[in-house]
């Protein structure tokens, strides 16, 4: 978009107002992405701000070889993943919700009691969304990012490769793995035909 190019140019020259216009253009999408990464509104809110701040500070590293939106997604992804990694390292008493890592490296929920919803309870969209989000929360970062960027944000494989800074082949396999992880889980609960 030509108008956006102008805004980016101006922002690079220190025009904060121009940058804020870019914020307005992209904030909903960035928030949506952060929400799916972090799993809740509060964190999404915080991470969105962090992402834009970081983008503001490191604007000169935007080379223009991808679209500005794609670059923003990259910043957002890094900011969220950083935060999630940080949290993992903290030594908390083990929570009931935290998944265990199995030998295969897939994370499964602890089976204290099987409280996950069955098919009839998931008629409500809200409950269903929450269920999907829970599954996403339990995924390994490289799977989560791939599947969110593809199936929630609807980026192309090329764009995803730019966001994740990897090859298209890697994107292909991560998406495939991620989808199969989810599919298996849902199939086990008989949520799929």
């Amino acid at each position, binding site marked *: 978009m030509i108008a956006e190019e102008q805004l980016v140019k101006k922002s690079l020259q220190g025009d904060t107002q121009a940058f804020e216009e870019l914020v307005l253009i992209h904030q909903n999408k960035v928030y949506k992405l952060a929400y799916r990464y972090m799993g809740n509104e509060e964190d999404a809110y915080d991470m969105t701000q962090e992402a834009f701040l970081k983008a503001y*500070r490191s604007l000169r590293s935007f080379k223009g070889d991808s679209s500005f939106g794609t670059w923003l997604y990259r910043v957002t992804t890094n900011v969220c993943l950083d935060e999630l990694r940080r949290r993992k390292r903290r030594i908390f008493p083990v929570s009931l919700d935290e998944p265990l890592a199995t030998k295969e490296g897939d994370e499964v929920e602890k089976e204290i009691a099987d409280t996950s919803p069955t098919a009839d309870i998931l008629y409500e969209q809200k409950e269903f969304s929450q269920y999907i989000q829970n599954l996403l929360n339990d995924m390994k970062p490289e799977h989560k990012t791939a599947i969110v960027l593809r199936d929630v944000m609807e980026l192309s494989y090329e764009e995803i490769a730019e966001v994740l800074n990897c090859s298209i082949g890697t994107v292909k396999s991560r998406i495939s793995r991620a989808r*199969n992880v989810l599919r298996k889980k849902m199939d086990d609960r008989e949520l799929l035909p």
Partner: protein
Amino acid sequence: MRCEQVRELLSPYIDQMTSEKENQAIEAHLVQCLECRRELEQLKLLCSMLNDLESPQVPENLAQDIHRRLREEKTKILAFREARRPKKSGWIAAAIAGLALAVGIGVSSLLPVGSIMALWQDKTAEQDAKPKVAIEKILDAARIAMNTDNKGADDSIGGNNSASNQKGDNKPAVTGQTGKLNAPEKNSSSPVNVAENPIKPVIVQEYATRIKTDNLNESVNKVIQIADVSGLEYNLSQGKTVQGLQASNTKEVTFKVEAAQLEGVLAKLESAGQVASPVENKRELTAQYQQVQDKINTLDKQVNALEEKPGRTAEEEAELADLKADLNNCCVAKENLDKEASKVTLKILLFEEVNH
């Protein structure tokens, strides 16, 4: 094709990321394999479920909060930078730094960078111009002032950087170092990459002129009016002791103008008094700019290297935070260099003839 092979391809197949050959093989297999067909349908359903997830409601305050944080960011860096200017002399400088910090924090980011520099200059000029009774001292001060005038006394970010460039001092004034005012210097671990990406020259056009007047205050007001009317950024500072003129009879106004406006502005200034022909004074910022850019590149690499690292120790986290803060400051510094270079500076020294 066998089932395992087909199943590996189902995901890209849905996204049309498989080749023609692969498509043919997949479709041929699907025709006669119920299990694989079922899996394909499950995947498709899953994808559409994810796709149909409601977009979360974006909180209303988000834009506001981001706005606020961006402004805070700017102000914070401004104040921090001012406090870390190269010190001229011990306690005076410390006091001035404290003042600059207080001013910086109190100031909104709408205030042009120039006026903070002017405030700074104000203080140091006053200190320098203090009781120097003997004529030699007046002339000395005048000589010094003239020298700094020629170099570009408008205390730019670099200050006396041209000397330190050659020394490999590795301390461009723009480098922010985290911590308090008196924190020990911390050299970045790797040497600054010299001109990996040479940049085009960055030059600040500066013109200096004098206006002789019978009534200093009246003329100053006229000049300020001209700035307002022409929509120019300006700032006013106390005069300097220069070429036999006493500081008390002079005032300096600095304009930022577009190159095209210059002639017009000079013409308007005639109404404020006798205007001397302007003297051109190009300041080269290229070296500084290159230095900042190189520093940014180096820091960027270091930050990325650390961020890519999967498991960071506590020291590495701290280092990462420091690097990021440095990077931050460098970016702002560069921003400001850009700003400086984008407009022409016109320094107007107004002076009142003193008739004894």
